[in-house]
């Protein structure tokens, strides 16, 4: 049955309409959870507000468990789902640069759009920065093309690389996530901020 678009149950244009609807859900939840506030987002790095950690990992494990159950019931063919390819060096370097961008700018791309939609000017400036950053990457592509494509590992799943079953890997991630939630709530008590 699923994924509907890959199995040609819905057309490519219908798929775009669903993209819009899914985007509405995405934006609504992000804003509702407080991801439109950069100080709330940055709070995760200081312990005063770990909403990012909670929402992010809850979403990740919910979808992960959901996908595994869908696959178990034969509702979705996981081999047709997009999994991002792993290029080891650029995945790490990109993550490090994004981490720096996150702590300086206070947003990530998705949350900046969400914040911009309710009138946050800093988010608009952040989006301007995104445009410049991507333009720089595109213009200087020849300089880092080699690095960008280095150490290609295929499209491995973490469960495959560790030699575990998908389900067991999922259980481990879920347990790690709840351990982090516990630490997060402890940190919120330890480093409270009254007003931000």
């Amino acid at each position, binding site marked *: 049955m699923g994924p509907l678009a890959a199995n040609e149950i819905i057309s490519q244009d219908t798929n775009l309409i669903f993209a819009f609807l899914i985007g509405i859900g995405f934006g609504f939840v992000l804003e509702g959870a407080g991801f439109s506030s950069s100080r709330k987002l940055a709070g995760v790095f200081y312990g005063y507000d770990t909403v990012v950690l909670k929402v992010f990992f809850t979403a990740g494990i919910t979808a992960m468990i959901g996908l595994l159950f869908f696959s178990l019931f034969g509702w979705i063919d996981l081999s047709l789902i997009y999994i*991002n390819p792993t290029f080891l060096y650029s995945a790490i370097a990109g993550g490090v640069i994004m981490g720096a961008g996150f702590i300086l700018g206070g947003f990530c791309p998705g949350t900046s759009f969400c914040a911009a939609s309710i009138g946050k000017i800093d988010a608009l400036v952040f989006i301007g920065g995104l445009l410049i950053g991507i333009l720089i990457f595109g213009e200087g592509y020849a300089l880092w093309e080699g690095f960008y494509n280095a150490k290609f590992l295929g499209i491995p799943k973490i469960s495959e690389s560790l030699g575990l079953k998908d389900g067991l890997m999922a259980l481990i991630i879920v347990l790690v996530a709840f351990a982090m939630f516990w630490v997060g709530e402890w940190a919120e008590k330890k480093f409270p901020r009254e007003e931000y």
Partner: protein
Amino acid sequence: MTTTKLKSKTYMNPYLAGVLLGLVLLTANFISGRGLGASGAVKSVIVTAVDAVAPGHAENAPFYVEYLEAHPKPMKSWLVFEMLGVLVGGFLSGALAGRLKFKVEHSPKITSRRRLIFALAGGILFGFGSQLGRGCTSGSALSGMAVLSLGGIITMAAIFGTGYALAYFVRKNWI
């Protein structure tokens, strides 16, 4: 203390929000066979703009050529429509909760100007990093975790690890 309480009440419970976001992500995978994303839409805008302003340049630079080959109409892509939805969804939620307001949010210890400079710098870094890492927090880290992607989890660890490593040096901006 009362203000904190009021504030946190207006936002959704984070775990509820997480479950809802997870369901959105699950729906995206079930319907479209892919996760959520954000920076890809910005990339579409850039490629379209470069192609419109300097078509000759877009035909020569491999970055744009590769992208245009794979996406003949960059603006008619899944991520662009999804991000338009994000703008609508965020606006709706903000309107319902009464949070629509033009403002620059920053710590009382810094000026708006400083906040905006940092936002721009952060945006540039994030834009660059998202291209190098083949996806941002939503596309690579969040969606990658849901499908147990090794690359996604590595990128996620790198993002949060660097965030914590650098947090001390810019603490004035936030707390």
